[in-house]
């Protein structure tokens, strides 16, 4: 196990290094840089002013030197200066991380809390009216774009309640924050919960037909025990995998939801930074997301072991 963890750790480092090179190079291959955008925003493209900005920001230095400076700084915890706001990138990024993390966490939690039980119910009540109803709901969850759903929720709220659940002021308490984030989290989580539900259902149906389930039933185990103790645990393996993948995909979902509900999180900030070619912000945020994805994958692999004792990671 120790050797496996060491190998995984080294692989993580290698993956993050690869990501850093990829994002660094890709950003510079995209047409236009911050100097283009800054002068463009002013409606001019004066070559002298542009050259001055490029020099000030160090974009005229060799690319290897720029990369080395970024990675060196990252290792020391210095994320550099944001090009647009001219403030330390850490100051710009840090306050937004908890907001998005809470939103993503709540969305993921909702998707599991809704998706897994309803998936099980749908499977054990296969081909009943309840099953059809849940399948239609899950299908709509997969089909409705979060952006559209978010707008519908806002419109309905304004029309019926005369209020709008957007993040316009910083919440004063934890409870207020949970209340504020719950609607956008439900909008993002709706799609994920639909996916989790459908996968749980199909996985459960497969497991429920296994011999050991028949054996458990013949031994007199109750229906609840068969469903939850014997079947669900084995059916959860693919579900855990998809939850891991969804955690990474959530960032994409957050971009639109943060925009519609006006939440000042990292996802919306990342898009804005990409549009402005604000390299320090984009590079550091992408690295942060890559780190989270790598960690989630690691945790998913560990979860396999906990769920199925037959799985062993050899040294």
């Amino acid at each position, binding site marked *: 196990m120790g050797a496996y963890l060491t190998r995984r750790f080294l692989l993580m480092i290698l993956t993050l290094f690869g990501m850093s090179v990829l994002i660094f190079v890709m950003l510079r291959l995209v*047409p*236009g840089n911050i100097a*283009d*955008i*800054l*002068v*463009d*925003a*002013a*409606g*001019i*493209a*004066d070559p002298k*002013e542009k050259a*001055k*900005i490029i020099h*000030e920001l160090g974009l005229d230095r060799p690319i290897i030197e720029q990369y080395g400076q970024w990675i060196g700084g990252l290792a020391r915890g210095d994320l550099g200066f*944001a090009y*647009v*706001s*001219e*403030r330390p990138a850490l100051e*710009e990024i840090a306050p937004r991380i908890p907001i998005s993390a809470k939103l993503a966490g709540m969305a993921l939690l909702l998707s599991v809390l809704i998706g897994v039980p309803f998936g099980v119910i749908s499977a054990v009540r296969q081909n009943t009216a309840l099953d059809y109803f849940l399948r239609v709901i899950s299908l709509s969850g997969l089909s409705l774009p979060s952006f559209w759903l978010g*707008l519908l929720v*806002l*419109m309905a*709220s*304004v*029309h019926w309640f*005369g*209020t*709008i659940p*957007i993040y*316009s002021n910083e919440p004063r308490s934890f409870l207020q924050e949970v209340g504020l984030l719950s609607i956008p989290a439900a909008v993002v989580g709706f799609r994920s919960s639909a996916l989790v539900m459908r996968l749980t259902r199909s996985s459960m149906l497969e497991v429920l037909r296994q011999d050991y389930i028949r054996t458990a039933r013949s031994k007199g185990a109750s229906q609840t025990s068969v469903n939850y103790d014997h079947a669900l645990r084995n059916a959860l393996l693919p579900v855990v995998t998809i939850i891991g993948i969804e955690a990474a995909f959530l960032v994409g979902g957050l971009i639109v939801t943060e*925009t*519609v*509900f*006006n939440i*000042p999180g990292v996802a*919306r*900030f990342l898009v*804005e930074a990409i*549009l402005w*070619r604000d390299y320090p912000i984009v590079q550091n945020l992408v690295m942060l997301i890559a780190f989270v994805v790598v960690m989630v994958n690691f945790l998913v692999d560990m979860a396999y072991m906990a769920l199925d004792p037959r799985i062993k990671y050899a040294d």
Partner: protein
Amino acid sequence: MRICLALVAGSLAAAVSVASPAFAQKQGGTLRISHRDNPPSASIHEESTISVNQPFMAVFNNLVFFDPNEKVNSPDKIVPDLAESWSWNPELTKLTFKLRQGVKWHDGKPFSAKDVKCTWDALIGKGDEKADIIRKNPRKVWYDNLKEVTVGSDTEVTFTLGRPQPSFLSMLAAGYSPVYSCHVPGRDMRSKPIGTGPFKVADFKRNEAIKLVRNPDYWKKGRPYLDVIDWKIVPNRSTRMLGFEAGEFDMTFDSDVTFPLLKDIKAQKPDAVCESRPTNVSSNILINRDAPPFDKPELRKALVMALDNKVFADILSQGNDLDGAAMLPPPAGVWGMPKDMLATIPGHATDVEKSRAEARKIMEGLGYNKDNPLKVKVSTRNIAIYRDPAVLLIDQLKQIYIEGELEPIDTTVWYTKIQGKKYTLGMNLTGVGVDDPDVNFYENFFSKSDRNYTAYNNPEVDKMIDQQSAEQDREKRKKLVWEIEKKLAEDGARPIIGYNVANTCWDPKVKGVILQHNSIYNGWRFEDVWLDK
């Protein structure tokens, strides 16, 4: 007719809300406004967008400014600001300002004539490089005629011009001409600027919010009325509109409400005060006249003759956009040519079919016809407000055997591409900071301007521009301006397809808002705005 009615209705609504003597202005409160996007910086001198002017104008003062109680900015409606008075020398080449005493910057330091000098020194390229007050200068051309700024005393400053230029005062009165402080570095001016204005910047959180708080030491006693102006940056327009309807915001971003959205707002919030007005932002066509095929004047003429501006207006703004030549048309525009004259210049004909028939003859003479169309790319910024008119243009060009293909350009490289002449036809939007021929002509049509994107170069027009600029008789100047407009239309220099008209709405409790009808970039001081609650 519809726009006239809208203007009258808007004016009446605003007049009722502002001018009623029955109201006693109330002190205090927070004005909440939605902002459409993240301002590139807070430095007005370095940017060219209403996204910067609207929130940050209230932080600064000018030397003089357009009377905020007047809806139309005009040279005879300029009032003192940091300057108490001004005078010209007999040759009209020296403009001397007497400055107010006792004015302080937001950080407590005293304001003096040196600040005025260092602001305009930076704008004409004579500033101290180390001070680095500005790093971009999009309106350099405004001050081409400014030779030097001299300080007479702490309260006296003189602008010396190369030749008489009556419009110079109008440029100083623009929202784009605040006085900066010498002691604050450019980086701070871009992120948390220091001014002498009625509001101080408390916070500018990128992509999130801008918070302005009352300046208790403001030199104008009793102003401002508001305690706080809270701008929330809400990039999604639907969210902004719903937020206004739900009472989350007291006011929409300027000109944010299109005519279809206005209908929604009136349905959901019937008591909202909405005012329709021209923005002085035109949609115009960029023609690369230095490369084939549009290096042929006949081809440019045919293109202009194919335009039907009414169709553009009908589709883009439910018929509310205004048809005009190079200057914003009257009644909002002070200098634009009258309607009957407009109908006589290319691109604005009333009988479009007849005009197109003539254009087709020109095209046939050049060897193009239905079976052998001229194939061109129509480049534009990849943003809806640019793309939509470009698509309509492509459709109209089909009428004269021109087959256009849309080429959406990443917005980051748009001006680089245009200035590099890597296009054939382009669709562009141009906002004018001051409704004044000097500002518009020198910026967009003068041969030496950085912002003359098409590199239109006509020595005769350059001469006419200089001539109108020096003319002191307003009526004579107007006639010269109309001649220039006619010449520009005949030359196909940036054919205008329309002037945008849009709506701004606010809650009835917001009082004292007076929108300027010939420039969206002016009139955002907010010092006379108050809340009736």
